[in-house]
């Protein structure tokens, strides 16, 4: 009884609330063990319905709260209780086990493995050009309908041009195609050949990638600013856009296309393509001002992860996984825990620019580096005996000790804070203390500040021996020369801009640049010697342990610090104390110089035992033969070094906005999605909803080894693109269908769940998905099948209002005609440029910018601006696309703001759109260019100019009435006015 009658009631009406991580009232009706009692006590007393709380609440209509059960259902429950409330054959039942009128279960059609889809038999066999047609005809014939006649050649070529490459055909291309088709009307094979040739030509065009790449960017919510408070521009995001275009053009298998966008950086070891592809994950909004409290930071991060998880689920699986963040999915069989599994799979993803090195001649560079190593060894072999001899001589007093440079102040920190050379004695604040001959700083409040310096200082050297409490601190100052109020300063600082790197800190980074030195890794365990010299020409040079640290650079300095108005502080970047400025560690010794030391001097100062031997001292100890060899080697080495430097100069560094891979934080389930209601730890994973694909990602989770970001994303990518994942294939072919026909077989291309309803042609979807897999996930064969079909080639003519097709299927879901479609804003703009002869058809590269970018105190404004400039005349996909800031033309033609994914654009017809098409300055300029072009190409005759204008814009000749009106119009107002009018014609902005 339970399995047949009771379980279905629980599944459909109760388990939504009474199961899962936190069942309502503590009552979990999903298993035998938990179904009998809740928080308030026993709810079912077997054998006694009247004493059972469950019966009372249900029979009185209090439960379920919104919709009471049907009478017979209530009675069935009563009888079940009376007969002993015996549980059924399944240990647990789930509200996901079966689809109901309210939600999808595991048996939902889109989650099932691919079903075989035999090509159906139809009556109108003569219309079957592709198997697709049989599927479409079968449905039509079942409703007593049929396909419309084939569209004429002119309509068809226009349709397929816009559809495949997003641009109109030239008059010559139209003429040629029409001629080929009409010369051989009696030979259908010849027509077929002409059309097939055309299709293959278009699919091979590089503009195909621009057209279909644009569709993909809608799904990818590709925008070139962060959004939120600051909305800073992303100047390096376009590598993703170009990668998408290239991939479409190369017909990259779609499984690889998908995987690359999830884990391209991992799959290709940070190749340029891999980094660019992974840009998908971070193409959405990014909050850069997340609030000060830890809760708000966590909240912002969770919001960000939801955005990414949501996009991945919808894009590749058609599943709105993000809807399960606060509770189990309301419509689809996705648990809240599975949402957090996905989140864990992507938890290492953060936003940012990555540097990519383009190596012009990598093998040669490698060879040079090897050569340099040989020289270094050979030189060392000559040097080392001489160096040892020099040191030995010094020991015996036979050679002069090199003089260490003389500081103007020195702090030994042995017992006190005194300057052992001058009078710059220090004073402790915030609990700074001396222990074991070192100054101890806590990184919070402790610092030392000295009395004012009594002389002007311009050139300088700061030097200290320091050990750090931790190396991941960000921004603490070791020693700082500052104006006494701290407003101007030069300091030795760790990790402020780049973690674990030393830098020359300065006020507002005025004299700060990346040094490019190695990450600090030793200073936690031992004292390191750090010195920074500030030369008179502004050159700043840093040394670590007496050796050059990174590279010197030229700064805007040096600053002259006025006598009596400056001092030294230790343990903080500059006054006033607090925040990230404070250093946690110990300083053993520090010195200040009023000049920039040479490399040699720094080396001598750093070498406590005075081990340093200079080159002249070495040369003095060589034999003449050795000396010649030594000098030859040095010359050769310098030559090799110069070649390498030259190669390095030609090596270009490119920033790519993409995933910054970080170590994933531990993921917890968050009750009600609240960052303060922390549940159990959740491991990276996916959902078990997708039929037949094993949902264990097989990530190593044994103690001591948590899978890193790369492993997680790679496993996720492999799971999504698994060959048994029918959902992935279905969603992919449906996107193609959606763009070819204007409406998908599933109407919601990014949602294949309960809200999507049923596909219009389920069998066809299975067939196409299987074909995609057969073709190795390549899209072009599928495009080809679709556009070669009779279904696609139908005419679009509307039916009379009493036509049976229109009565039966006004929305054309059965495809009894080809529905005409308003072109997207991008296609309209591109067509305007092309027909006016203004299109700059260059592929790829950094975007053109037709907005003003105005940073204003923490936020960035984007205002559309219009100007006549050839560099702006590129296809619209190359437009810099910040969030906000589009022209009225693109806006009114429904180009979506890239803030959210837009798998299906709305199409509106409004007076504002009419006004833009008539009056927009860009449109008017193109009308002028088009008129000029027509004049040039057609000669002086007004009539031929008009013909040419028609041919260029709408690929046909004017009829007589139009011709008369056009002549009158042109004579009175000129040719540009006719061009302007034709831009507003249906035939220009609609593909029929």
């Amino acid at each position: 009884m339970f399995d047949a009658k009771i379980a279905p009631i629980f599944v459909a009406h109760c388990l939504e609330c009474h199961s899962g991580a936190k069942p309502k009232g503590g009552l979990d009706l999903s298993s035998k063990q938990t179904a009998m009692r809740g928080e308030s006590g026993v709810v079912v007393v077997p054998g006694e319905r009247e004493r059972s709380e469950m019966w009372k609440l249900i029979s009185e209509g209090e439960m379920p709260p919104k919709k009471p059960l049907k009478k017979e259902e209530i009675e069935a429950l009563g009888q079940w209780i009376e007969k002993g409330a015996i549980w059924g054959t399944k240990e647990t039942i789930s509200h996901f086990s079966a689809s109901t009128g309210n939600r999808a279960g595991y048996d939902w059609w889109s989650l099932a493995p691919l079903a075989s889809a035999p090509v159906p038999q139809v009556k109108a066999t003569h219309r079957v050009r592709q198997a697709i047609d049989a599927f479409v005809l079968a449905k039509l014939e079942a409703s007593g309908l049929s396909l419309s006649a084939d569209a004429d050649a002119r309509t068809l070529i226009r349709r397929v041009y816009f559809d495949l490459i997003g641009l109109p055909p030239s008059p010559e291309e139209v003429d040629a195609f029409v001629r080929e088709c009409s010369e051989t009307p009696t030979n259908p094979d010849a027509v077929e050949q002409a059309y097939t040739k055309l299709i293959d030509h278009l699919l091979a065009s590089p503009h195909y990638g621009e057209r279909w790449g644009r569709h993909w960017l809608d799904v990818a919510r590709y925008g070139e600013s962060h959004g939120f408070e600051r909305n800073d521009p992303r100047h390096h995001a376009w590598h993703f856009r170009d990668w998408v275009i290239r991939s479409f053009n190369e017909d990259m298998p779609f499984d690889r296309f998908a995987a690359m966008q999830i884990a391209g950086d991992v799959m290709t070891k940070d190749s340029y393509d891999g980094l660019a592809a992974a840009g998908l994950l971070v193409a959405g909004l990014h909050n850069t001002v997340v609030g000060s409290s830890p809760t708000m930071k966590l909240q912002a991060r969770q919001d960000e992860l939801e955005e990414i998880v949501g996009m991945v689920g919808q894009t590749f699986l058609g599943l709105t996984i993000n809807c399960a963040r606060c509770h189990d999915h309301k419509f689809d069989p996705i648990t809240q825990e599975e949402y957090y599994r996905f989140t864990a799979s992507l938890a290492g993803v953060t936003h940012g620019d990555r540097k990519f090195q383009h190596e012009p001649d990598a093998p040669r560079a490698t060879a040079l580096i090897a050569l340099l190593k040989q020289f270094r060894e050979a030189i060392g072999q000559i040097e080392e005996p001489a160096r040892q001899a020099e040191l030995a001589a010094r020991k015996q007093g036979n050679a002069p000790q090199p003089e260490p440079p003389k500081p103007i102040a020195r702090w030994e920190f042995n017992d006190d804070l005194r300057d052992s050379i001058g009078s710059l004695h220090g004073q402790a604040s915030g609990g700074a203390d001396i222990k074991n001959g070192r100054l101890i700083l806590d990184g919070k409040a402790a610092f030392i500040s000295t009395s004012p310096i009594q002389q002007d200082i311009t050139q300088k050297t700061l030097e200290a021996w320091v050990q750090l409490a931790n190396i991941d601190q960000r921004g603490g100052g070791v020693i700082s020369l500052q104006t006494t109020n701290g407003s101007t300063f030069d300091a030795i600082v760790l990790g402020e801009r780049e973690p674990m790197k030393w830098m020359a800190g300065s006020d507002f980074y005025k004299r700060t640049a990346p040094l490019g030195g190695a990450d600090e890794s030793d200073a936690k365990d031992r004292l390191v010697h750090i010195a920074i010299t500030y030369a008179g020409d502004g050159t700043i040079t840093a040394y670590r342990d007496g050796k050059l640290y990174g590279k010197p650079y030229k700064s805007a300095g040096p600053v002259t610090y006025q006598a009596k108005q400056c001092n030294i502080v230790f343990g903080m970047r500059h006054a006033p104390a607090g925040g990230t400025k404070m250093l946690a560690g110990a300083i053993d010794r520090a010195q200040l110089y009023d000049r920039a030391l040479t490399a040699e001097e720094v080396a001598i100062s750093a070498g406590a035992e005075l081990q340093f031997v200079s080159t002249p001292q070495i040369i003095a100890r060589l034999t003449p033969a050795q000396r010649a060899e030594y000098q030859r080697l040095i010359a050769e080495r310098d030559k090799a070094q110069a070649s390498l430097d030259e190669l390095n100069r030609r090596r270009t560094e490119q920033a790519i906005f993409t995933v910054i891979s970080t170590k994933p934080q531990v993921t917890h389930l968050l009750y009600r999605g609240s960052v303060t209601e922390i549940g159990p730890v959740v491991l990276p994973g996916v959902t078990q909803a997708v039929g037949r694909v094993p949902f264990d990602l097989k990530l190593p989770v044994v103690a001591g080894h948590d899978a890193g970001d790369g492993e997680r994303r790679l496993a996720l990518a492999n799971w999504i693109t698994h060959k048994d994942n029918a959902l992935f294939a279905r969603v992919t072919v449906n996107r193609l269908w959606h763009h070819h026909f204007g409406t998908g077989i599933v109407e919601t291309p990014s949602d294949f769940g309960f809200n999507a309803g049923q596909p219009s042609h389920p069998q066809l979807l299975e067939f196409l998905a299987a074909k995609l897999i057969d073709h190795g996930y390549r899209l072009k064969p599928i495009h080809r099948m679709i556009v070669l079909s009779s279904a696609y080639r139908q005419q679009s003519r509307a039916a009379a209002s009493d036509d049976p097709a229109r009565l039966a299927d006004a929305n054309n879901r059965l495809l009894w005609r080809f529905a005409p479609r308003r072109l997207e804003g991008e296609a309209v703009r591109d067509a305007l440029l092309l027909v006016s002869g203004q299109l700059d058809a260059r592929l790829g590269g950094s975007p053109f910018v037709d907005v003003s970018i105005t940073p204003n105190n923490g936020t960035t404004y984007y205002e559309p601006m219009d100007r006549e400039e050839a560099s702006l005349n590129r296809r619209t996909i190359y437009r810099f696309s910040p969030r906000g800031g589009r022209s009225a033309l693109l806006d009114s033609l429904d180009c979506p703001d890239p803030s959210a994914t837009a798998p299906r654009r709305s199409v509106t017809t409004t007076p504002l759109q009419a006004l833009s098409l008539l009056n927009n300055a860009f449109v008017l300029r193109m009308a002028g260019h088009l008129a000029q072009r027509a004049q040039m190409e057609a000669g002086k005759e007004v009539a031929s100019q008009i013909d040419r204008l028609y041919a260029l814009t709408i690929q046909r000749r004017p009829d007589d009435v139009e011709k008369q009106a056009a002549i009158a119009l042109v004579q009175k107002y000129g040719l540009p006015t006719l061009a302007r009018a034709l831009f507003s014609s249906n035939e220009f902005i609609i593909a029929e």
Partner: protein
Amino acid sequence: MITTRRQLFQLGAQGIGATALLSLLKREGLVHAAPAHSSPHTSTQSAAQLPHIPAKARRVIQICLVGGLSHLDSFDYKPELEKLHGKSLGSSEKPDIFFGQVGLLRKSDFAFRQRGESGLWMSDLFPHIAACADDLSIVRSMVSDSANHTPALFVANSGFQFNGYPSMGSWIVYGLGSETDSLPSYVVLPDTRGGPNGGSSNWSSGFLPAQHQGVVISGGKQPVRDLFPSGDTSADADVAARDFAQLVNRRHMQRTGHEGMFEARLHSYELAAKMQLSVPSATDLSMETQATQEMYGLDQPTTADAGRRCLLGRRLLEQGVRFVQIFSGGPIGGSPRASWDAHENVKENHTAEAARIDQPVAALLKDLKQRGMLDDTLVLFTTEFGRTPFAQSAANQVGPGRDHNRYAFSIWMAGAGLKPGITYGSTDEIGWKAAENPVPWHDLHATILHQLGIRHDALTYYHNGIQRRLTNVHGHVLNELLA
């Protein structure tokens, strides 16, 4: 038979904009005329089942104060704060404010007194508005999700902190359509000093169809983007070009047969022509009497900008515009400040900003009232958050500025079906946090929709798997405010 919104918009998604669609459908008898309004103007677009409830308001005008109005210096009288002036906040909690400097408590810079018959306490900051106290319904316990301007503005406008969600104005015109087909249904009038943080995202239609986004009407020859051709084309040429396009389009439709989208396009060009006439006439303030112009302060340099926009707002409402949004304050930042963001000095900043809008906003209220429009017009006077009761200064000082406060602020509403001359909710004794009946934006949005006859939980739009709402999964109507 088209019965549901969803079906209606499925059609829309296939190529027929709802504006023209509905009139077409009506002509075909597929949809009943919306029972919401019996306007003399053509009702061009509406949902079949609206209103859900009897509507009190037919239109809305909102004055948005950008930057954060100090409730403590305007609508929230705190005698205790006067007593505690110079004392410390005495809280160990780290407040989520912007700059993080917590100075000593600071009393209001403006004197408070009781106003009108209702005896509402209001400061001298807005003397003209204070004179209308008996018409106002003040909410003193507003709270927001963010203490940063842009997200806080987004929450105020769309209920979400993120870009990409439809603004309240878009939801309203999506639900109710327009009472005019020759003007945009949702009009935005930004401060002439510049747009607010977040720019046009504040009036974006998000994932709703593009026709529902706010349309900026500005001064000059081009009050609406692309209303007229720039450059030197003659008006005759404009007409000739449009007529020719229509000729071609009509002949095209004769060949294709009856096609909704094509007919909608024809219609849209007719409406565009009407808009070219009605926008300049609506924006021509010289048609108003001298007395009216002076009442709005058009004759004074300080009040002229806001005065023009308030007067224009009234004219637009009269002509059937559904939602008018006026911004007071341009971009945050810069010096001197051009918004209400009084970090440095509340007295100086608020005095200057209030001088720009006080008389115009009061004039708008009086004007609507004398024309009988206040009965079915909802007036909103809002800001994205309030300001702190403590000064923005060093911990031991009482500086002259105040930082952002998302825990409490005041807004007011007036008109259509509200109880006038009342306050709702309250803050703690120093005005730091909402104490009694905290009101998040979702509740205010729900209340505004309710007055327009819309159930906030029933006005939805399917987007990426979710039937989205202005109020997300929240929202309670503030019944205590309703007459």
